[in-house]
């Protein structure tokens, strides 16, 4: 292979192998081609998919949602001026993801409050709907796992996050959701649902978008880290053992009072009847006296 680079070879025989130039050239070509293949065409294709997703989402929207939310998600008013379905422009992908994945949307019927139920769309359809609504106007995006997970923190930071989250939770959330996140009553038949067993992502989305009666906890109000900490606290409650025994629904003194009367007094009266039924004259074999 001397013919390729004869003079150079002589000058630096001990520095470079004879094929180095060729290898560098090939590597350069490969990298250029590979990078181009990896980046440029992929981006082009993704853009294509995004547009497709939005189109698919719009299709699904027109079938499943437009009756109440309008054909362009502009909202629909009833004849007497009430909202049939609000405008979805600017609610963001997070709102769609929360409402559809928890089964709240599509709604079964208008009522005091929209309860969660098994979800009606699969993950891909939900993503399409979210993409379509997100394309209507800027709004909160679906949070990434790194937003609500404390897995990346050190042990000490994690404990601090949970403690901080507990205080934020007790200050901002317990008034409606109860001290253990078991839920509580709101006026006129509405309620704050239980937070037990709700996924991290959905809690985060609810904080961002404020579904139903819930206020929006914007990032200016509760920073993303604080939202994450609240979620971490709730999950720590779910993971910790039930120190005192059966929790009786964690509803506070009402369920405790019910247990005291039904279980406690019930047992006591039962024993009283039992003791009184067994006098000194009573035995298994009844003696005729």
């Amino acid at each position, binding site marked *: 292979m001397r013919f390729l680079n004869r003079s150079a070879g002589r000058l630096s025989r001990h520095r470079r192998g004879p094929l180095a130039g060729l290898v560098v050239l090939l590597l350069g070509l490969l990298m250029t081609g590979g990078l181009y293949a990896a980046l440029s065409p992929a981006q082009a294709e993704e853009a294509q998919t995004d547009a497709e997703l939005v189109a698919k989402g719009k299709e699904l929207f027109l079938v499943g949602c437009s009756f109440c939310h309008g054909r362009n998600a502009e909202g629909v008013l009833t004849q007497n001026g009430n909202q049939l379905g609000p405008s979805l422009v600017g609610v963001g992908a997070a709102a769609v993801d929360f409402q559809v994945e928890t089964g709240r949307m599509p709604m079964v019927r208008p009522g*005091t409050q929209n309860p969660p139920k098994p979800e009606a769309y699969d993950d891909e359809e939900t993503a399409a709907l979210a993409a379509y609504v997100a394309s209507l106007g800027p709004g909160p995006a679906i949070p990434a796992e790194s937003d609500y997970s404390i897995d990346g923190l050190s042990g000490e930071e994690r*404990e*601090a996050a*949970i*403690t901080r989250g*507990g*205080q934020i939770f*007790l*200050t901002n959330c*317990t*008034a*409606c*959701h*109860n*001290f*253990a996140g*078991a*839920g*509580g*009553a709101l*006026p*006129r*038949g509405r*309620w*704050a649902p239980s937070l037990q067993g709700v996924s991290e992502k959905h809690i985060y989305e609810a904080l961002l978008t404020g579904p139903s009666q819930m206020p929006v906890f914007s990032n200016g109000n509760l920073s993303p880290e604080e939202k994450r900490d609240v979620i971490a*606290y709730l999950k*720590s*409650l779910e993971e*910790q053992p*039930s*120190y*005192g*025994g*059966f*929790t*009786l629904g*964690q*509803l*506070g*003194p*009402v369920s*405790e*009072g019910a*247990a*005291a*009367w039904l*279980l*406690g*007094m019930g*047992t*006591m*009266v039962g*024993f*009283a*009847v039992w*003791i*009184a*039924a067994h*006098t*000194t004259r009573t035995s298994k074999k009844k003696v005729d006296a």
Partner: protein
Amino acid sequence: MSVDTSKVATTNATTPATGAKKPGRGGVVANWADERLGLGGLMKKNLRKVFPDHWSFMLGEVALWSFVVLLLSGVFLTLWFNPSMGEIEYQGSYDQLRDIPMSEAMASTLHISFDVRGGLLMRQIHHWAAMLFIAAMFVHLMRVFFTGAHRKPRELNWVIGSLLLLLGSLEGFTGYSLPDDLLSGTGVRAADGFMKSMPVVGTYMSFFLFGGEFPGESIIPRLYIVHVLLIPGLLLALIAAHMLLLVYHKHTQWPGPGRTEQNVVGFPMLPVYMAKAGGFFFIVFGVTALMGALLSINPVWKYGPYDPSKVTAGSQPDWYMGWPDGALRIMPGWESSFWGTTWSWNVFFPIIVLPGLMFTILLLLPFIESWITGDKREHHLLQRPRNAPTRTAVMVALMTFIGALWAAGGNDILAIKLHLSINQITYFMRAFVFVGPVLAFIITRRWCISLQRKDNQDLLHGFETGVILRSPEGGYTERHAPLPSSRQYTLTARDRGTVDAEAPGPDPSGLAPKQGRLSGLRRRLNTMWYADDVAKPTREELEEAHHHAEHEHELQAPLDGHAADGHQFDGHHAVEGEELRPRH
């Protein structure tokens, strides 16, 4: 001059005449103690004291034994509880609250719960026993009233019992306020508001109790000393008085053969009731220990330390304070402003006036009843609830009133668990607290009267045997058999009609002529009290009924032992002596 009696026979010849047996070791000790304390006479009399047996007589005992459990578990808790509002940073085992500033009371409660061996169990036993203590007092109170055990001579014991109920509730409130967690702090905050709703003196009282503006630094230490010294001392003294009066009056008993107003039929204290009551103590301790071990109560670590800026959904008092809370929840928001001050009737009426009024009614119940009925005789035989329809109905009406308010106190939990609107529950309860007791009164009263009729029917016509007879004409009748005579005695062991000492002549106390109007009211109430009461059958009616029954049996006698289906006339049997219709 001494007579040597050692040779005198101690028996009358069935056993050898020897000297008295040497007392055993226990006897020596007992003798030593008796010679110095003189307890022998007292014990001799009271250890053989007779108590009647019935399950409902043991309800008060549940309260007594729960109180003992409370004393034992409470002493354990005082060893670690630190009743101070000084602020420290929590550094105990519970991760979620580490480094959080809180009062020493809260921190020591967490310490007891997580770092003292058996501490959480003891806390939960103490709390469950408190809930049961007051529940048992309530049930005992209802039993006493329903059976007429509050009548003379036991009115003062009723008053003592009512005071025990009041003090027990206050003891409970001071107790669950001590941990200084979010829930108890909310309760103390509410109590501060209640006090301040009192016109004129309210704010002064609040500042006096809290040592300044709420929350201050004094309330927990003050509640603590009330909880561990003042009220338990009063409770102990009143319980002792309650029991002494019980021994002095002797226990009431159900009527029955051999049971009169002058005797008590039952078993002696030793050994029967020692065993029964002692055993029942261990059962009560066992049940509270099981509840403490298995059922979580007041998880203070989840509530976190009290902070006036926080509150949790489902903030309720413990159950016995629930009914005034319910009254507060359903009360319309009435307020007035006079001379630049706000008068909060919406708080003052339901929380200050109503419980005071209800407690006064409770205290006076025996006196009101004896005033209306004019019955000033001693009673040691109990009445079945049906035999005092108006009294039973009054108690059921009161229970309905308290129960409705109690339910209203849990309106938020009812709303979420039954999928109702909290507003609708509130509107419903506003009407129901007035309508419900009236309905309950009418229904209970008529129910009792019907049961009285049923008793009379059983007495006059016997009970239904379930034996169906067919007459030759084809009609069906059920045979009635007379009740056993002991049952008949029990059913008829009650007063007939009114026992109004005043009705005929002038009032022996001489008050009636002076208080004409009140006396008229009393007479009207007396008439209403006994209206529609069914009197027990008279001797003549009973004899007539028995005669009638014997006659019926005579008529039916020829049919006895024969198949009543007519098959004896099917041509396969000899029918001499068989008659279609008995002759008479």
